[in-house]
């Protein structure tokens, strides 16, 4: 019973309580850069789910064989391999998406969320628990990304997932799609989630 609970916790904690983007403020660059449209955010999230989970499996499987001094370099090589796979796959099957995301798929390599989870979790825990942790964290990342992208696309373009949601009376807030909108949206969301978390802690 207790063990089940902790397995569940491995997964749940990444979604909200230790959300990598909103609480830990990791992986800011892709969060800001690819959230100008929901489609981009989805493509990015899928890539991160894939890379994080696969690297967590490999690294927790070989964690006993990696010497301590070269562990960071080994993590980076494993991560870079999976990122290359994701990048090539996207370029081959969804060339338009790959172009829209530009260098940000390759940049998953240096996304601090991934390296952080490898160092903090996958290198110390069993494969099964590492998978749960990786899934939780990457879904948490996806939630934050989708939230941001929805705000920005709806306000900035009047559409959601390229579907019109606001009528023609809506004046597009162009700034939301442009770079400043990313900072403003993330600042507001981070402030709001902090507000909610302190409020619930008191209650």
């Amino acid at each position, binding site marked *: 019973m207790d063990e089940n609970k902790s397995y569940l916790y491995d997964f749940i904690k990444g979604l909200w309580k230790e959300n990598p983007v909103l609480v830990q403020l990791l992986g800011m660059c892709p969060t800001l850069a690819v959230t100008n449209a929901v489609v981009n955010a989805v493509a990015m999230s899928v890539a991160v789910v894939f890379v994080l989970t696969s690297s967590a499996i490999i690294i927790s499987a070989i964690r006993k064989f990696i010497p301590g001094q070269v562990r960071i370099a080994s993590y980076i090589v494993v991560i870079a391999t999976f990122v290359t796979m994701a990048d090539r796959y996207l370029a081959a099957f969804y060339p338009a998406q790959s172009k829209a995301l530009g260098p940000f798929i390759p940049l998953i390599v240096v996304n601090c969320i991934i390296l952080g989870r490898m160092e903090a979790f996958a290198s110390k825990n069993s494969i099964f628990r590492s998978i749960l942790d990786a899934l939780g964290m990457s879904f948490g990342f996806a939630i934050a990304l989708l939230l941001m992208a929805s705000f920005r696309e709806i306000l900035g373009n009047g559409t959601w997932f390229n579907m019109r949601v606001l009528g023609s009376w809506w004046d597009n807030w162009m700034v939301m799609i442009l770079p*400043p909108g990313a*900072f403003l949206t993330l600042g507001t969301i981070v402030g709001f989630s902090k507000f909610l978390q302190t409020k619930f802690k008191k209650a």
Partner: protein
Amino acid sequence: MDLLIIFVSALLINNFVLSYFLGICPFLGVSNKLSSAVSMGMAVTFVMTITAIVTWPIYHLILAPYHLEFLEIVSFILVIASLVQFVEMFIRKTSEAIYDALGIYLPLITTNCAILGFALIAVLKNYTYIETIVFGVGAGLGFTLALVIMAGIREELDFADVPESLKGPGITLLVAGILALSFMGFAGLIK
């Protein structure tokens, strides 16, 4: 003339932090004090220039002729990581003053996405060797500029009455948004 355009565009118009969103982690983390912001900016400019010098030959003389472009990510990150280590050791041995100023920031830069992002963008844009180096210096100085402006604002912000939940990252991001807005004014600089 082209070189000047590349330089100005990397410095102001396509500022790495405020319009490409690269290097946001140090931008939020190290921007609370002016002095450390300057050191961090200098360290990034330095590493970026070296990265430009090294990654261009790797891509255009080794990877491209043998059709190994898919190894771009792995080789760039390994080269940058080991390069930074070497530079750090070299500086520690040769110059005490520079090491004190930049030392602790150098290891942090390895996983700074601005560096890898710069190397990848330079390949995407198909720059020549000289252009890549100019682009590196410009991008590094642009990063420094954004970081120093931000640090200046945040030092003042310490005295402001900020709502509890916005303290720290929240207000920093909002300020960065306004800063990005004003940097958009540079967009008309080059047609």
